């Protein structure tokens, strides 16, 4: 696929999936009814389904996907690790611990929760990188992944300890959230996530040149006059904030950040400014699709969103892993 072809195809697919996401659901609505409902006309139930349920949900899914895609692309570039992504690096797990502590302390608003999640995410990525360096993992990308997976396991254990005294339904909520879901999306939540996504995504686009240079290796970076240490730290922190905001909004949704940058690179896009934008588009499309599957595959129940993305992402991960062995 040519590069211009990629942009057209990605944009068309995203728009088509968003239209599908708004028009398809448990309640069958004709396209005509959906259009009328969008304008606020027609059957009251249809208007509420489209405007209060499906639209914010599709918007939230798209933002979660965009955030995870951009975060994954930035981490893969700056770490020179094609297997890096927020979920596998333990960043999402750390964010979850932060968010659970935030909720336990009584901060459950859409504004404050991402900040608690961010604190957890930043701690997680810093620890993962330290462990990998101590283990001499600069040469082997799998060492960093292992450190990340271990931190993710520690995060799960920490959450279980915090929740051990909780009643059964609270436990069920926590497990549900740890598998990710866009159910219950509302406009204030969408607005806050959009704010965080634009802020952190914009910052990463600003750092895109640095990521390009980091992707060449530390020595090249130094030769080109970039402080690799400082530039890297900035990218890790902002990527973690972006991932943490998605975790606070929709729980743990894995593997999107892994799959999406590869799809964009497959279209021949290498420089990080277009790569990050392409990852935002593709990630949004992927999660909108995954959420559509999650809410319509098994009515009247919903599947966890993270389970759907994992079903796609794990085989993809294994294929990528083979390239290193």
């Amino acid at each position, binding site marked *: 696929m040519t590069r211009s072809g990629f942009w057209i195809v990605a944009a068309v697919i995203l728009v088509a999936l968003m239209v599908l996401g708004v028009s398809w*659901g*448990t*309640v069958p609505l004709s396209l005509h009814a959906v259009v009328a409902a969008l304008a606020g006309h027609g059957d*009251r*139930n249809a208007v*509420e*389904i489209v405007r*209060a*349920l*499906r639209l*914010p949900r599709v918007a939230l899914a798209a933002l979660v996907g965009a955030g995870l895609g951009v975060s994954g692309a930035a981490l893969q570039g700056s770490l020179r690790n094609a297997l890096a992504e927020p979920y596998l690096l333990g960043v999402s797990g750390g964010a979850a611990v932060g968010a659970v502590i935030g909720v336990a302390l009584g901060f459950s608003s859409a504004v404050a929760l991402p900040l608690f999640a961010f604190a957890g995410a930043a701690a997680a990525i810093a620890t993962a990188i330290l462990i990998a360096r101590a283990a001499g993992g600069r040469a082997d990308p799998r060492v960093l992944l292992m450190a990340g997976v271990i931190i993710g396991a520690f995060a799960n254990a920490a959450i279980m300890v915090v929740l051990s*005294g909780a*009643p*059964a*339904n609270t436990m*069920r*909520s926590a497990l*549900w*959230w740890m598998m990710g*879901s866009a*159910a*219950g*999306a*509302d*406009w204030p939540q969408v607005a806050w996530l959009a704010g965080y996504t634009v802020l952190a995504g914009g910052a990463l686009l600003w750092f895109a040149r640095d990521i390009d240079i980091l992707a060449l290796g530390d020595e090249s970076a130094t030769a080109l006059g970039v402080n690799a240490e400082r530039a890297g730290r900035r990218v890790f922190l902002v990527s973690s904030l972006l991932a943490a905001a998605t975790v606070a909004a929709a729980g743990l949704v894995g593997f999107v950040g892994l799959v999406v940058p590869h799809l964009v690179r497959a279209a021949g896009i290498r420089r990080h400014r277009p790569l990050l934008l392409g990852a935002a588009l593709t990630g949004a499309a992927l999660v909108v699709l995954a959420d559509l599957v999650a*809410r319509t*595959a*098994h*009515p*009247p*129940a*919903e599947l966890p969103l993270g389970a759907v993305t994992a079903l796609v992402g794990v085989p993809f991960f294994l294929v990528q892993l083979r390239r290193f062995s």
Partner: protein
Amino acid sequence: MASSAFVWWRALAHGHLLPGTVPILRRVHAVHAVPVLALLIAGCRDAPPRRGAVRVDDFGEPVRRGSAVSPSRIVSLMPATTELLFAIGAGPRVVGRTPWDLWSDSARRIADAGVGLRPNIEAVLARKPDLVLLYAAGENHAAAQALHAAGVPVIALRIDRLEDFRRAARLIGMATGDSARAATVVDSVDRTLARVRSATAGLPRPTVFWHVWDAPIITIGRGSFLDQLLTIAGGRNVYEDLSQPSPQVSIEDIVRRDPDVILAGPDGAARIRASTTWRAVRAARTGHVLVVDTSLIGHPSVRMGEAAVVLARLLHPGAMP
């Protein structure tokens, strides 16, 4: 073979998501029915001759009659049986409960022996019980065996529906030597339920969505006593077609079923009223959210009659005196 093919066809025709699951389950039941029956017959040979209808608990273990030596230190690991023990006058003999057993007030003073699913065996044994009442879920099999091995009699009971409560009351009454009072308690619950049923019999039946939990949204299905209480109180559960006691559902499916009324606990009702997503449900939009006292209605036990009265008054103001 022919009937199995028919089941397949029917599953496909009715659009099951996984057509295989239904016939496979049925086939498994059919294949296992014979050996299970043989085991039951073999088990009955060793058991003392049956007099009443109920002599074994829900794990199939025999229950000892408590009329001669009645247990004096009972640990009750589910709220339903704790309520029942107090109602039949065995409350003073209860020496352990779960953190959720908060009725009656005297129950709160009893030592907390830990949770009822996968209980902490040491904490239970520390109460030096001579009878333990346990919820008969698969994950409690190991606990029942461990307690048996420690020489402590166990009665495992699966109390999900009204009829489970009646059977559990008879069994527990027999084991504690309070059969007569247990029968009285069951009778009084049944009489109240009958009174509510007849009071609501001729009335129009509003369709009800029962909100148990928010994220994920959990409601009640046919497998729960709450579904039965709702019917008795003159309502109709919009999820009566689901067999699980507490299924998870999506909000859009609730919109599709379009209940007349939403029942929720105080916290749930407040969240529904404040939420913009719940506005999609007509009952929430039009203010038909009714608050139920979840502590009264939560357990399939002696207060079910009272609970049915409360529900009937909520759904049909003026119908119950």
